[in-house]
């Protein structure tokens, strides 16, 4: 019932949920034009699921930015690899100054 209602209301706004998820993704990379913004806005007014989706895309971006800076995470270069690299570095001829 509710689903039907949402579907018919969404038809007025012109977007299906699938299209709304694509638009929300597009908005993460490039500014939407006026029409697209309006369509997405109208869809979000009536669809909490797509609202969640759009908000979560932004959340994930902020987490990933933080993730990229997480250089204090527990793993490190294995000690055997460190020794191997040191040996390789020592065998490099000294550069000319």
């Amino acid at each position, binding site marked *: 019932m509710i689903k039907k209602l949402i579907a018919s209301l969404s038809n007025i706004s012109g977007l299906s*949920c699938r299209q709304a*998820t694509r638009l929300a*993704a597009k908005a993460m990379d490039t500014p939407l034009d006026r029409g697209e913004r309006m369509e997405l806005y109208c869809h979000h007014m009536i669809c909490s699921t797509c609202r969640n989706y759009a908000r979560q895309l932004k959340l994930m971006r902020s987490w990933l930015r933080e993730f990229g800076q997480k250089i204090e995470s527990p793993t490190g270069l294995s000690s055997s690899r460190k020794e191997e690299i040191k040996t390789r570095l020592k065998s490099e001829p000294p550069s000319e100054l």
Partner: protein
Amino acid sequence: MESTEFATPRSSGSNSDRNIDPTRWVDEHGDCLFRFALVRVRTAEVAEDLVQETFLAAIRSRDQFRGRSSERSWLVGILKNKILDYYRKLGRETTFTDLEFLKDELPHKFEDGFWNHALGPKNWKPESDEVTHKEEFWQTMRDCLANLPDRVSAAFMLREIDDVPGKEICTLLNITESNLWVMLHRARMGLRECLEVHWFEKS
């Protein structure tokens, strides 16, 4: 010796007369470089190789280092280029996994283009700040990112982590813009789904 910035009390060994001790680099920066690479290439083996290449490239070009930046950021700069080279190599291969992954837009979650609202995105609780303090959350993030095919992951990392513009990613990975948007859309959908199932529905 152009700079005294290299002279640290810990510097020792056969290269100490040059004020540069490359083996000290490995102890001081190795782990940090490794983690920087691991986040972006996901496989420990690949990350280790890239770090090794970085140190070798650094020792060959050490004369170009004038101490304008810190030793650390100089090395990270070299590593970034090594990671881009690795991505470029991925861009030359189209794999079956890519195609399979990109084809699937979670069809079972939609009915006639509308979310089956029982299966669609839920309200995540707790959001934001609270989760990022938990190491287990980041492990889930790592596991979920590991599910993405290599090329899709490369595109996604460049866009989301390092904020590289779409056009540059296309050139680097040798793909069209519409290809890129599909990749990013699917990566986002896949990661969201995975985090919801393996973190938010569990906690």
